[in-house]
């Protein structure tokens, strides 16, 4: 069965050109980049080349790039580095809809005595800058927010956030894992001090990422050991991964224009679903959104059942709902947006890539209506638009 892949916010296919670029570093060029001999030296040069490729995509300087293993490592490092650099400040500001690798670090920091403000979001998933400003004080050490949300694709106004953070002397970290390669970045003229990205979200393999650290930013490393990455991230480099990330960054830059095409396909999918299926809605901001992401809630049914039905036809999508994620809790992002439970549990995320084709979109448009219809026919809520349901929803809301 052909796979129709609409789960690119989870991970992406490795671009064949990227694969080709990295293979020699798994085969003939296996030297250690830290070695003195020229066999290792060649490898070290490849890392430098990748650094430049990535810096160029970000509008950064080579020396500002620190290679890491993934987005989680980048976010953990950035948050701890920023706090260690300002021991006299004990406040952190973030949002309710961050990725777990930011939220869980913040929760732990709270236990260690930090005060964390979790900014709320409105029903479109957008934060309120006045709430941010009200939360900022002279003891705010760090503002850490995403650039774009992984579940809904909602894009935060990072430069405005950064400007406010700066006016209180706070460090500004951006988790740009979902945004890099999809949204423009020019770190030279930006307010961002630290920025995280992950290779496998932009057609490099898993297990490689990078952290941008603004030149002059006081930095305390998380991993201690050798002098790799100028002492900012010890550990022998994942050379093939780094080479791949460099190549992927170069391709992302070349393909930047094609995100318009991706967006057209996304819109076609979104509008098609809204037009052919009743009782559904887009969860997210109508315009401030990643070009490749749509999160749609289908009332009266549950997401896992939709996903498994799609899976039968080789269609891969994702659900923010409880059942698929292993945890039983429904998506914290959709909950923070105040999405009613009737829709929340039946929400599906489709995330496209530059490989997505119109034919694939059309196939999903053809598959979805009968799937939704079948599951709704099973649901007790659909049959009577139940008072049962209304009552409970109201009871929950009044809790």
């Amino acid at each position, binding site marked *: 069965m052909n796979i129709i892949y609409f789960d690119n916010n989870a991970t992406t296919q490795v671009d064949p050109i990227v694969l080709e670029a990295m293979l020699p570093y798994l085969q003939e060029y296996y030297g250690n980049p830290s070695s003195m001999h020229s066999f290792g030296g060649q490898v070290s040069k490849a890392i430098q080349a990748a650094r430049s490729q990535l810096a160029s995509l970000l509008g950064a300087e080579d020396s500002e790039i620190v290679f890491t293993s993934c987005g989680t490592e980048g976010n953990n490092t950035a948050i701890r580095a920023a706090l260690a650099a300002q021991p006299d400040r004990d406040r952190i500001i973030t949002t309710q809809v961050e990725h777990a690798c930011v939220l869980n670090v913040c929760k732990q920091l709270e236990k260690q005595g930090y005060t964390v403000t979790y900014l709320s979001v409105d029903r479109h998933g957008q934060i309120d800058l006045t709430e941010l400003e009200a939360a900022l004080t002279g003891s705010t050490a760090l503002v850490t927010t995403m650039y774009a949300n992984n579940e809904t694709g909602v894009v935060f106004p990072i430069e405005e956030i950064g400007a406010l953070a700066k006016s209180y002397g706070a460090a500004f970290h951006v988790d740009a894992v979902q945004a890099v390669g999809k949204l423009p970045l020019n770190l030279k003229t930006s307010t961002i001090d630290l920025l995280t990205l992950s290779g496998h979200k932009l057609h490099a393999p898993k297990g490689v990422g990078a952290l941008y650290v603004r030149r002059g930013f006081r930095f305390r490393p998380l991993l201690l050991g050798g002098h790799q990455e100028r002492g900012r991230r010890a550990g022998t480099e994942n050379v093939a991964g780094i080479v791949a990330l460099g190549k992927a960054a170069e391709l992302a830059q070349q393909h930047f224009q094609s995100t318009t095409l991706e967006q057209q396909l996304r819109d076609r999918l979104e509008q098609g679903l809204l037009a052919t299926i009743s009782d559904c809605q887009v969860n997210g901001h109508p315009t401030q959104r990643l070009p490749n992401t749509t999160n749609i809630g289908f009332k009266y049914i549950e997401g896992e059942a939709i996903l498994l039905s799609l899976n039968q036809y080789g269609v891969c999508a994702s659900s923010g709902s409880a059942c698929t994620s292993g945890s039983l809790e429904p998506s914290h992002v959709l909950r923070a947006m105040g999405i009613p439970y009737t829709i929340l549990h039946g929400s599906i995320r489709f995330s496209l890539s530059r490989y997505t084709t119109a034919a694939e979109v059309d196939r999903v448009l053809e598959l979805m209506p009968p799937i939704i219809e079948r599951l709704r026919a*099973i649901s007790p809520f659909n049959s009577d638009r139940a008072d049962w349901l209304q009552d409970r929803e109201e009871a929950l809301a009044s809790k």
Partner: protein
Amino acid sequence: MWDYTDKVLDLFYNPKNQGAIAPCEEPGIAVVFGEVGSIACGDALRLHLQIDIASDKILDARFQTFGCTSAIASSSALTELIKGLTLDAALHVTNKEIADYLGGLPEAKMHCSVMGQEALEAAIYKYRGIEIEHHEEDEGALICACYGVSENKIRRVAIENNLTTVEQVTSYVKAGGGCSSCAAAIEDVLTDLYKEAKTLAAEIALREAIPQPPLTIVQKITLIQRVLDEEVRPVLMADGGDVELYDVEGNTVKVVLKGACGSCSSSTATLKIAVEARLQERVLPTLVVEAI
């Protein structure tokens, strides 16, 4: 990734007995439905039964389910299991039988089978006019706010399914699967259960070892109540029944049989085997149990 058996997938893609049963005017036939679950949990089941009043048999069973793959498959399995059974026999169907019928469920999805069993009870109790709230756990303290699960429910399911860890409780009744701030409280409930079982065993051993001075009437009643609550009721509840202490006169213990036990043809046997023998063994060999 989903780790479902072929049977689960088959009943998800081709569910049997899906839908509602229309109300029926025919004499001798009753139609009733029971519902459980909540929107917040993301699982809800409405089970419809068509009952032959004279024989107390389930003529038809259908379901409507809001939920994941295993919730839909469990509901379908349940309807298959209970069709043709008498209501008393149906009340004996456990969540484990539902899971077994499906060739097993991933542990994290066991709550789907529990939901099936509860919907069945809800429907039958409704038909019999038994207030579910009184049988059910709503009275107990709420342990998990995320999923609205009470202490009594955790106790009941833990006893029935031999659960010993918080993770297992989460898999069976969802409690603890949300914000997980109730994990410590669940742990406490389990520890208590374990402790109770142990102290009870120790007390019994002690009583058997040393000749006891005669019990005062207060001691006797307290002990009877305790044995009923901790040893007898969980067993009866597992079968959809229940018992309540009504009075103690001398050595005669008067009880009210409830739920499935109340109308069960074998209730005399239940009374003698499950209740009287147990009380004789644990409290006083001369006790006689009577149902009122």
